[in-house]
């Protein structure tokens, strides 16, 4: 920014403005930028709408409850049976359409345009080339008719098909000894699962429901479907998959829900 020469206006002070305060606080001022202020204002506003944010719950109590929740994560990974299969059902029991769930209402779903869509890969993966819808359609398909159980308590039987996640991870050369597989979604939703669950035989990247391409509200073009987790762990509208050893925090976990959320 350049300083303009003083104008002849009578309203302009004769002496230049004292700059010492500005100099002393330059560092602070440099840190203020419009984007951050907007972001701050947004999150401040969002706090009033989000459920279960810190201001509402006693801080010390929340810290304790989060510690118990992490303990419960460990307990759940201990009782997880990697090769124990979830019960499957017959096609006649499948509910059509499935029940919608997200952190917003069904009419606010923003459909993903499959033409411009590409699945990005990141982290501990050898072949990080992105995948198009057509390429994914060419992968071997696995069908699961399994029960979807929501943390709220409702359930339904759904028929999902798509590529087995273990198969996909092996195909792209992912490090299968890593701890987590994380998902980033088109609606800014984030989700992550433990590697044991990712490698479970009934965990797939689903592209179809009841033999038809998944419709927009249910995660078109690609979503996770795992038989051993609560509904919210099954990320929809997946944009990117990352294999990592660093805990990828997730949308609902940040708000106090249990991370492992196994069933």
């Amino acid at each position, binding site marked *: 920014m350049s300083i303009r020469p003083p104008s002849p206006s009578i309203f302009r002070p004769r002496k230049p403005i004292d700059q010492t305060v500005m100099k002393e606080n330059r560092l602070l001022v440099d840190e203020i930028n419009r984007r951050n202020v907007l972001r701050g204002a947004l999150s401040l506003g969002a706090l009033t709408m989000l459920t*279960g944010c810190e201001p509402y719950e006693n801080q010390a109590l929340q810290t304790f409850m989060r510690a118990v*929740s992490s303990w419960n994560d460990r307990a759940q990974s201990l009782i997880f049976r990697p090769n124990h299969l*979830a019960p499957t059902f017959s096609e006649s029991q499948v509910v059509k359409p499935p029940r919608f769930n997200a952190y917003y209402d069904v009419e606010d779903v923003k459909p993903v345009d499959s033409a411009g869509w590409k699945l990005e890969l990141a982290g501990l993966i050898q072949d990080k080339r992105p995948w198009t819808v057509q390429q994914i359609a060419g992968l071997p398909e696995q069908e699961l008719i399994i029960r979807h159980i929501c943390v709220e*308590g409702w359930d339904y039987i759904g028929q999902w098909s798509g590529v087995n996640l273990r198969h996909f991870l092996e195909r792209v050369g992912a490090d299968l000894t890593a701890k987590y597989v994380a998902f980033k979604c088109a609606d800014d939703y984030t989700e992550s699962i433990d590697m044991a669950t990712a490698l479970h035989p009934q965990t797939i990247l689903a592209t179809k429901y009841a033999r038809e391409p998944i419709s927009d509200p249910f995660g078109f073009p690609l979503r996770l479907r795992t038989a051993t987790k609560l509904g919210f762990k099954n990320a929809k509208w997946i944009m990117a998959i990352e294999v990592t050893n660093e805990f990828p925090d997730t949308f*609902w976990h940040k708000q*106090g829900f249990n991370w492992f959320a*196994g*069933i």
Partner: protein
Amino acid sequence: MHWTNAAAMLIMITSGWKIYNDEVIFGWLHFPEAITLGKYAQHGLQWHFFGMWILAINGLVYLTYGLATGRFREKLLPIRPSEVIATVRDALRLRLDHDDLTHYNAVQKVLYVGIILVGVVVVLSGLAIWKPIQFSELTSLFYDFQTARLVHFLCMAAIVGFLVVHVALAILVPKSLLAMLTGGPVVKRESPDPVRASDPIPVNE
């Protein structure tokens, strides 16, 4: 153990109501938010999965103790139907005095055995809906996920029903409350067939 259980039960019941409210089983039944535990559903869940450890560990210790020491057999058995009827008759005439606090009457025995069994079922059905895949064998004993959830709910209802009667009667018989807090009267135990070295050996004459 009783008071640990009481605290754990209260946590489980009130946080359970919070979780129930998120997806009700009966359209006509919502629990008033004021009597539920936790600000939102996730906090109800946090409490529930914290309380479960206290309830389960305390309950296991209690059951092991009761079975191993023979306390259950001594205090809660036998239950004779005629005694149950007699006690109910007394109670309806408002004769509630417990002459001997160390002995349970027949109705108490029925209720206490019943509530212990309900306690076992509430934990089992809880495990069945917590891990319907990992413990799928257990869940199938309850038929399926929703029926296990219904059993879990009905056990809660039974426990709350028991609590109302239990607390009301404890208040009606105040000396029992005091005993609850102090540990109760000391019971002198005598082995049924004391054999003492000093006993003279009977001699047949």
